[in-house]
């Protein structure tokens, strides 16, 4: 069995701050991480690997520095890592991204493709299902549970007020939710091997059989009309406590903030 996991390197949005003057994101100095839903996808693949001996390949499209996300995937235990990178892929919207990734995945053998539901820096949730469309594969999104069977999967799909149990035959694509699992830590030895023993395969435009009008900024049908900063309001905390407990909680919080 061969599993391909699509991952994206994203800025750690919990540390992103807004420029108070321009209202834009300050990205400098913000550490990059593997997108959380994608990391759950990696973990799901590694658990299947542990059970079935499957081979896991992580793939990402991004600038050269996205290599770090792949090294992290290697340190978690994936067998192979592919970086799809080229200046001509730059500025891609979800269409151009999925088109390019699908072209890359077509070069691989696979039974299962796992992507994250959505990336925390874009929140579109489009790339996974679009890859499935390009590759003409069945896909199930919002997966929060996986059982591997002979030749198919039984997946639990999250829905607004319920969930669906879906049987899906290989080859197929699923999009993973962070709720799917608790991703493992890298091991120290895994980190050393990821840098010292393992190689990352790099594919540029030259390596892909792809219609050049469908890639990068030029191949992106999405036109951004306007960007603006969302008015941020801190999320409130709702508590259901006895009046006495509530009061001591409040006092505790005020003390924490040195107001009391």
């Amino acid at each position, binding site marked *: 069995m061969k599993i391909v996991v699509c991952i994206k390197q994203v800025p750690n949005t919990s540390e992103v701050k807004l420029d108070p003057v321009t209202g834009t994101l300050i990205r400098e100095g913000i550490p990059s991480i593997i997108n959380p839903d994608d990391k759950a996808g990696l973990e799901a693949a590694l658990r299947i690997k542990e059970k079935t001996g499957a081979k896991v390949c992580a793939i990402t499209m991004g600038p050269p520095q996205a290599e*770090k996300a792949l090294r992290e995937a290697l340190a978690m235990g994936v067998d192979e890592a592919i970086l799809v990178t080229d200046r001509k892929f730059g500025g891609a919207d979800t269409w151009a991204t999925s088109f390019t990734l699908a072209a890359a995945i077509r070069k691989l053998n696979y039974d299962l493709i796992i992507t994250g539901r959505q990336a925390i820096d874009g929140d579109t949730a489009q790339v996974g299902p679009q890859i499935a469309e390009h590759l003409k594969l069945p896909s199930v999104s919002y997966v929060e549970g996986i059982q591997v069977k002979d030749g198919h999967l039984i997946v639990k799909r999250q829905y607004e007020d319920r969930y669906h149990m879906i049987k899906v035959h290989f080859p197929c694509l699923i999009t993973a939710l962070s709720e799917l699992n608790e991703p493992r830590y890298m*091991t*120290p*030895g895994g980190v*050393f091997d*990821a*840098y010292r023993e393992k190689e990352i395969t790099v594919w540029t435009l030259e390596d892909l059989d792809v219609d050049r009008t469908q890639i990068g900024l030029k191949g992106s049908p999405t036109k951004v009309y306007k960007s603006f900063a969302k008015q941020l309001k801190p999320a409130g905390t709702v508590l259901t406590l006895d009046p006495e407990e509530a009061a001591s909680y409040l006092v505790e919080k005020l003390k924490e*903030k040195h107001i009391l």
Partner: protein
Amino acid sequence: MDFFLSQEHEMLRTLYKEFAEREVKPFAQEVDEEEKFPIESVKKLQKYGFMGIPFPKQFGGQGADTLAYIMAIEELSAACATTGVIVSAHTSLGAHPILEFGTPEQKEKYLKPLAEGKLLGAFALTEPNAGTDAAGQQTKAVLDGDHYILNGSKIFITNAGYADIYIVMAMTDKSKGTRGISAFIVEKDSPGFRVGKKELKMGIRGSSTCELIFENCRVPKENLLSKEGKGFKVAMNTLDGGRIGIAAQALGIAQGALDETIKYVKERKQFGRSLSKFQITQFEIADMCTKIEAARMLVYKAACYKDAKKPFGKEAAMAKLFAAEVAMEVTTKAVQLHGGYGYTRDYSVERMMRDAKITEIYEGTSEVQKMVISANVLN
């Protein structure tokens, strides 16, 4: 000369920080308050390979290096010094001597499960009358057929009661002084071996520090580590390496206290502005940062010397001497900058100040480090 960490060490730093933040820090207060050995954190450390970082893969280790190892001690100790010393005593003192001096059979039988995190290690040199003066050992080992018979006791043994394997020093020939000391690998279930009184300590209160008692304890003769009479060499070599671990622990405590203090002085307001706006605070923070960075350079240098297989005894002693002093100074200042709150147990700097003190004492007091350094320079 290159002061930059490699990419793999940078990534390890991220890993260690994340692990410490999620798996260690939330329990640090409770571990201290209740003097509770953090068994759950230790199990996770074992599961994720933290107990065998510098050992070769063939012996169950992670195949990383000393720098990778001491960075782990640093980051764990920044969150919880108890957790830091558990890993340090296990790795540097319990497992490392087997890598250095063990037979292939001893490595297979003991080092492998220790490095894989299946067993926990400890090291026993100190006795009631033999601390810094290691030659005053009273524990005796006498060969009787296929076994050595050990009699005596050890005190202040880190990880005691939780460890599966103990490296124990005992006299095989009292007349030869330090050359009469031999090292043994003792399993926790050996007949005649038991763990005695637990110490109640000022700091690192979650770490288990106990007495070990040997009453006609039978140890198979193949568990002699190195040769008869070479125990002092085993101990001194082991402690040289152990010092880098303790230096890293001290460094981590200092960094942890600084991080807490930076957070506090930015939040805390007096006279209408945050403490961080006062120049006295700024200058204190500048001093703390600078000293920590100087300590870090010494600690990392000692680790790099060890990795490069260069003599590192002096470097390790300097690193431990300096980092321990910095830990004490920085944590004391951290409490001061926290004012009255800093003296309460609601803030972790109080614990860190108590934890810091031991780094000036164990695995060679600061005075012993000065002896080692001066002997290297003067002789």
